[in-house]
């Protein structure tokens, strides 16, 4: 196997391992659009990174966290529905990011690689980033797993039972921001949410408890990444979209797998 291909596969698997379990919460808590909004804002983070001459991943995480905080503040003040707020923030931040990047004339940025990912160009440094972020995020997720689940089931009940609701929710937002930053390289900001929600949604058919669903989502994500990369290599497809399509194929064939499993019994 070629080096770049191995790196691409490792990067994809690293992202899938954390995106699956975290995606389960995105699905349970109906945060798909929230994830999308943060992802769209990521481009602004990239621009910020270039502007301040800091690591773009860091720029993305910072912008995502700021946006998440802004959103929480707006939710408490505004009377607009949540999805309206998200829609406003999602598209205005994406446009601001595009404008900011357009201003940097001296810089030649491959916009497409940010929008749709460039997994075949993953470097060793990227790999370190991806795996350290994924490992850290997984550890944090395991620590907050039980309280986060309690909040997801009933927030006020959890609060009365002593769960530090605000902190746990902030931690979840932070995790989503980190995952978006590292997944940007793999599938691009326009497709990141799919890595969060498609594997988790696929896993639902097979899972009997929350933990199973999280582990299965990680596994399904890995299969999707491998399948997508294979298709990309075999038929010269753009890698990011190929990964998403392969995840979608898994999702739509899940009922069929389930039927097969039942028939065997």
């Amino acid at each position, binding site marked *: 196997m070629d080096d770049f291909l191995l790196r691409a596969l490792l990067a994809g698997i690293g992202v899938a391992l954390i995106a699956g379990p975290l995606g389960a919460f995105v699905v349970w808590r109906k945060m798909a659009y929230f994830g999308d909004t943060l992802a769209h804002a990521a481009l602004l983070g990239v621009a910020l990174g270039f502007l301040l001459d800091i690591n773009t991943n860091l720029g993305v995480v910072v912008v995502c966290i700021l946006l998440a905080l802004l959103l929480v503040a707006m939710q408490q003040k505004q009377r607009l529905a949540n999805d309206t707020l998200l829609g406003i923030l999602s598209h205005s931040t994406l446009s601001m990011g595009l404008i900011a990047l357009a201003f940097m004339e001296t810089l030649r940025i491959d916009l497409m690689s940010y929008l749709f990912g460039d997994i075949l160009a993953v470097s060793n440094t990227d790999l370190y980033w991806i795996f350290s972020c994924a490992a850290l995020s997984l550890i944090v997720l395991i620590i907050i797993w039980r309280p986060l689940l309690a909040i997801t089931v009933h927030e*006020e009940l959890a609060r*009365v039972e002593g769960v530090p609701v605000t902190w746990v929710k902030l931690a979840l937002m932070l995790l989503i921001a980190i995952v978006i930053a590292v997944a940007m390289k793999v599938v691009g900001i326009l497709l990141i949410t799919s890595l969060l929600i498609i594997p988790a949604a696929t896993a639902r058919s097979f899972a*009997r*408890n*929350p933990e199973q669903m999280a582990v299965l989502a990680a596994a399904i994500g890995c299969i999707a990444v491998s399948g997508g990369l294979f298709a990309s290599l075999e038929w010269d497809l753009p890698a990011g979209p190929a990964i998403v399509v392969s995840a979608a194929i898994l999702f739509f064939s899940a009922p069929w797998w389930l039927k097969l499993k039942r028939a065997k019994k």
Partner: protein
Amino acid sequence: MAFAPSVKTTNMDNKILIEAKGISLALEGKQILDKVDIRLHKGEIVTLIGPNGAGKSTLIRIILGLIKQDDGQVLLAPKLRIGYMPQRLSIDPVLPLTVRRFLTLAQRCSESNLVDALTEVGAEQLLDSAMQTLSGGETQRILLARAMLRNPDLLILDEPVQGVDVAGQEALYRLISTIRKRHGCGILMISHDLHLVMSATDQVLCLNRHVCCSGHPDKVRADPSYVALFGNTAVLMPYNHHHDHSHNAHGDIIQNKHKDCQHG
């Protein structure tokens, strides 16, 4: 029988669990609660009744510390363990969750504790059922079991019989009564209907933003402000009637159906 009309009685179970005074809250210019007082003792069942929008749930949420009142203060007994049963629980089918997992979300507990709690609420056969397959009454029982697992000094139940058929409502109130007897915990609950809750409660607080009337259920039922709220006419009359008394000297908590106790 002589009952002291004040709080200071010699009753052993007289420890005050909740003491809230002058609770007021306005939301978006609308007064939700206006100088509400409430007091609850150990082993006592207090029921909040009142029409929709009367502020019953809001009062409970203030006592639980979930929202902040504009005015007034809530004092809870030190180290009070509260078991809370929220009004609604809807778990999305996308979250695979069994009753067992639901009960252990807040705290780990042993298998025998789990079985005991479920047996107490009459739902031991549901341990491994998916939460989403439960009926209204079953869900309420599971919620009650989760509250009981905390071994509470105080149970706060927000419409415990919601979504339960009439026969089931009676059974549930009986269960709540039994739990109080067995564990000696105080219970604060919300109900829409005084008739069913009658036998299970020591004190009723009729709430319509302010406390319209309070006391033993028999007495509240005869109160003009209660009749105005719940009588045939169903018209809200601006009748401001304020009883400031409590009944904590009902003695043995089992006997909450005294016909001979006249309060005033």
